[in-house]
């Protein structure tokens, strides 16, 4: 029996989890303050949320400076891992949440659902994401996943009077709960195989197990991997677990669709990387063929399905799924080679850069669609965006930039995401996959240009100017600026990603990779 419990939480641990603590405090504060705020002043909740995100970003910066002083990246008795990739993901989540909050204010006013709980739930969702990205214990990862997921279910159903929103929340909840259950079953099998809930311990036990079996995993390990992969792939909406995405994206409030497609996906990727690369690395001979199948199926199904969509949100949902297919190619490249090979780092670099550029270009695209909503127009369909150039020329040009970036056209940000992924594929000699990826990227250009065609070439259904609120303008400005800037001058961002991968050279992590 333990006699001294305070050994489990030291001052160093406190400094590292400060971002999470600050976000929690601000979210609780918004909940309580919202009770006293009158109806016209509800936007102050958004301001509080943004201030909370700013404080949390400051705390992440402080943690980043403390990183140099830590001998080992594990905090909280091994429950969390605080390396540079964690810091990178923290900044990414906070940026995504901030831009999504900026797009929400006017949208919620129009929908008459402007409540403080919205911002509170978004902050709780970010706390869950941080636990998923920093978690090194399968229990913490699972709880973080559930926290993020439940906040998102409620946010998707936030438009209580809209049937589509209710339906979207129900579908997302049912499929999400089901896949979380299967995921928990897989994790319990890994616990049974290794006797510990720590990802490092699981990795070592699996490495011993693979050695004892001459490189052939036992059926139980394969079953555990399959069930765990189900939960992981569901969250990033890869085929065949993508069915929830089009419906959830279409029915949700558009600002939440932007948030979901960006931050929730990044958190799903963080969890996927942590579990597959840090935890289940010895099983990579089993999951690489599985991922090859999943990524080809994802790219195919998503690109073909997006061709026939007329609803903008569904179209962008399928395009999100297609992007996940490209990112999975990066994961295949990184898992197909032995640890210190260049393809490993390029694959990881590709995924991280792709998530960064994808955050801003996708948020920008959804911000433009959110701004289409006004009193009588829902703003989802292709017809609603027709003639946007006459109604709001700046927004139309920005949307063109986002669409071209999503397609991967060079002087814009999306190109760099795809570049590193295809580079890593070629370095790991998956030439066919690289060719397929490029072919599907070109294929995807069709539906992005379909939207651009509607904006510029078709006449508008009503001629009045589209009012864009201050928050929306800020959000659009940030997204467009970063999309173009990263595309034209990617150096600082590539250097940031290289920095975040630096810790992978450390001895402790290298031990796990073998």
């Amino acid at each position: 029996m333990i006699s001294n419990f305070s050994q489990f939480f030291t001052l160093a641990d406190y400094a590292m989890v400060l971002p999470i603590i600050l976000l929690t405090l601000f979210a609780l504060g918004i909940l309580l303050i919202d009770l006293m705020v009158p109806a016209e002043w509800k936007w102050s909740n958004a301001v509080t949320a943004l201030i909370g995100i700013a404080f949390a970003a400051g705390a992440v910066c402080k943690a980043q400076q403390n990183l140099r002083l830590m001998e080992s990246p594990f905090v909280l008795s091994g429950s969390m891992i605080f390396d540079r990739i964690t810091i990178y993901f923290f900044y990414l989540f906070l940026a995504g949440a901030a831009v999504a909050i900026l797009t929400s204010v006017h949208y919620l006013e129009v929908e008459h659902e402007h409540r403080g709980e919205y911002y509170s739930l978004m902050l709780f969702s970010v706390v869950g994401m941080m636990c998923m990205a920093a978690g090194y214990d399968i229990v913490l990862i699972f709880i973080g996943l559930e926290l993020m997921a439940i906040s998102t279910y409620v946010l998707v159903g936030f438009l209580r009077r809209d049937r589509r929103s209710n339906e979207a929340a129900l579908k997302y909840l049912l499929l999400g709960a089901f896949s979380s259950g299967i995921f928990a079953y897989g994790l319990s099998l890994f616990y049974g195989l290794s006797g510990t809930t720590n990802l490092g311990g699981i990795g070592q036990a699996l490495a011993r197990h693979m050695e004892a079996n001459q490189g052939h995993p036992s059926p139980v390990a394969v079953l555990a991997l399959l069930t765990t992969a189900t939960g992981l792939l569901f969250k990033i909406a890869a085929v065949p677990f993508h069915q929830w995405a089009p419906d959830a994206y279409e029915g949700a409030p558009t600002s939440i669709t932007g948030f979901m497609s960006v931050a929730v996906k990044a958190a799903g990727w963080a969890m996927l990387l942590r579990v597959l690369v840090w935890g289940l690395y010895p099983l990579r001979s089993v999951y690489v063929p599985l991922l090859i199948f999943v990524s080809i199926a994802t790219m195919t199904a998503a690109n073909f399905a997006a061709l026939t969509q007329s609803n903008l949100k569904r179209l962008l949902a399928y395009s999100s799924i297609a992007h996940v297919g490209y990112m999975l190619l990066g994961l295949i490249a990184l898992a197909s080679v032995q640890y210190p090979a260049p393809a490993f780092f390029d694959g990881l670099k590709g995924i991280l850069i792709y998530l960064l550029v994808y955050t801003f270009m996708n948020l920008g695209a959804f911000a433009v669609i959110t701004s289409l909503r006004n009193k009588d127009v829902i703003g989802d369909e292709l017809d609603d965006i027709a003639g946007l150039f006459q109604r709001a020329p700046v927004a139309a040009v920005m949307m063109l930039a986002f669409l071209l970036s999503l397609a991967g056209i060079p002087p814009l940000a999306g190109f760099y995401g795809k570049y590193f992924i295809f580079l890593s594929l070629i370095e790991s000699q998956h030439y066919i996959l690289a060719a397929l990826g490029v072919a599907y990227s070109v294929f995807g250009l069709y539906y992005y240009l379909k939207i651009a065609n509607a904006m510029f070439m078709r006449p508008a259904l009503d001629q009045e100017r589209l009012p864009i609120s201050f928050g929306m303008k800020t959000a659009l400005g940030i997204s467009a600026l970063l999309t173009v800037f990263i595309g034209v001058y990617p150096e600082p961002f590539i250097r940031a990603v290289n920095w975040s991968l630096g810790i992978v050279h450390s001895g402790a992590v290298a031990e796990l990779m073998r």
Partner: protein
Amino acid sequence: MQPVATTFFFYLLAGLAVLGGVLVITRRNAVHSALALILTLLSLAGLYLMLYAPFVAGVQIILYAGGIMVLFLFVIMLVSIEKSQKEEQFNKLWLVGLLAAIALGGLFIGVYVKGKALFPEAKVVLEEGNNTQGIADYLYGHYLFTFEIASLLLLVAIIGAVVMAKKRI
């Protein structure tokens, strides 16, 4: 201390759990299904007792059978279901579904029979009569951050329930 007639009790409880599960999906009346689910949950609590985990068994009964099944029954009460009693219980592809379930069951049995030797001896052996204390040691020691995040999870559940269900908030 030697446990008594473990095999008999295991098969009895497991059989009751499976019986409850089958009854859940085959009964037409939703309340009968809920009661069968309670049967399954109580048999699982018995299985936990056999594994020397009385706290988990108690939580299973208090929370699952006592809280969540009450929720189920409330929903059954709130939603009018006479229509569903007249509908078809299974759709036309029930045979395919049954074969798929049998195949999946066979797969699981095969995997576990072949891999039985892999699972290491129980790494954590909680002493008899100290289940709750053992759980406390882990929950408030090693897993304390997870425990605090779990409180956030409960809070989000509260917010979600009131936001979605209340007519005017």
